[in-house]
């Protein structure tokens, strides 16, 4: 659980003032978030772990430059995204990314996977390693510009503005990319997961939120 905003602010001030040991406590709620945003970008566990460590060290060294106008979590994710991109660039994977940018113009319409026999997959299904792997593989298959938006919005639950800020893109683009990312994910996963869905026992009313 993240610290309260007040406690977090206090921790930041005290670390800057010299109580550097408190930095451990400050970043503890965000360990997963930083790792995950880099892992989904680099798709390599070992490199993601090393990069996550670098991110936290960088955050420590530059904590003074953190201004309270953004959330600390958004600031951290921004550093993480930059670290991930830098490493991708080094791996020359950036070529792929620019291709995706060009493609974006043309990718207007998506036809979702239409499966009227879709039943909800219960969350217990995640106890199966195979199920978890299928989900991760589908996320990995998304082009990077869509994947990063989906990860920040849906996995890390940043809001639109925070996501836009962390990625350095306008909110409108976050919305467009998120929609496409979700539809791609639906198309990839619905056919695979429907096989795991409990058998349908006839039509019944759905709950609309």
């Amino acid at each position, binding site marked *: 659980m993240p610290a309260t905003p007040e406690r977090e602010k206090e921790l930041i001030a005290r670390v800057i003032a010299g109580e550097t040991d408190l930095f451990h406590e400050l970043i503890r709620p965000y360990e997963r978030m930083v790792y995950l945003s880099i892992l989904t970008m680099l798709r390599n566990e070992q490199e993601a772990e090393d990069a996550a460590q670098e991110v936290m*060290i960088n955050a420590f060294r530059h904590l003074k430059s953190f201004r309270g106008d953004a959330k600390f979590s958004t600031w951290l994710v921004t550093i993480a995204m930059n670290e991930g991109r830098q490493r991708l660039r080094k791996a020359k994977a950036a070529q792929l990314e620019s291709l995706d940018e060009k493609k974006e113009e043309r990718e207007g319409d998506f*036809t979702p996977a239409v499966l009227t026999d879709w039943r909800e997959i219960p969350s217990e299904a995640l106890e199966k390693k195979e199920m*978890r792997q299928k989900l991760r593989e589908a996320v990995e298959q998304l082009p990077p510009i869509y994947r990063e938006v989906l990860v920040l919005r849906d996995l890390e639950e940043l809001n639109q503005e925070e996501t836009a800020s962390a990625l350095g893109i306008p909110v409108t683009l976050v919305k467009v990319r998120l929609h496409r990312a979700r539809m791609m994910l639906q198309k990839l996963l619905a056919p695979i997961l429907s096989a795991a869905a409990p058998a349908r026992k006839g039509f019944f009313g759905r709950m609309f939120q």
Partner: protein
Amino acid sequence: MTLECKNVWEHVSEYLDKQLDPKLLMDIEKHLENCEVCSAILDSTRNILILTADKRTYELPVGYSERLHARLEKAIREAPESKNDFT
């Protein structure tokens, strides 16, 4: 206004995020009442996102946190601006 399925699909994401304007939301809800296909698409998308975001889907490597804090500790100790005593 009668919506076609294709029009509904364009708004799946905003629907899930509850960002639709009230008029469009009403039209979509009306469409959903009679459209098994679009209902299934919405349900499946929502469900897929819930499963993907579940903590169990992505697990941290064993020992990740320990290794992170150990390396961090080293960096903190080495930091020139550190005012901590090495006691």
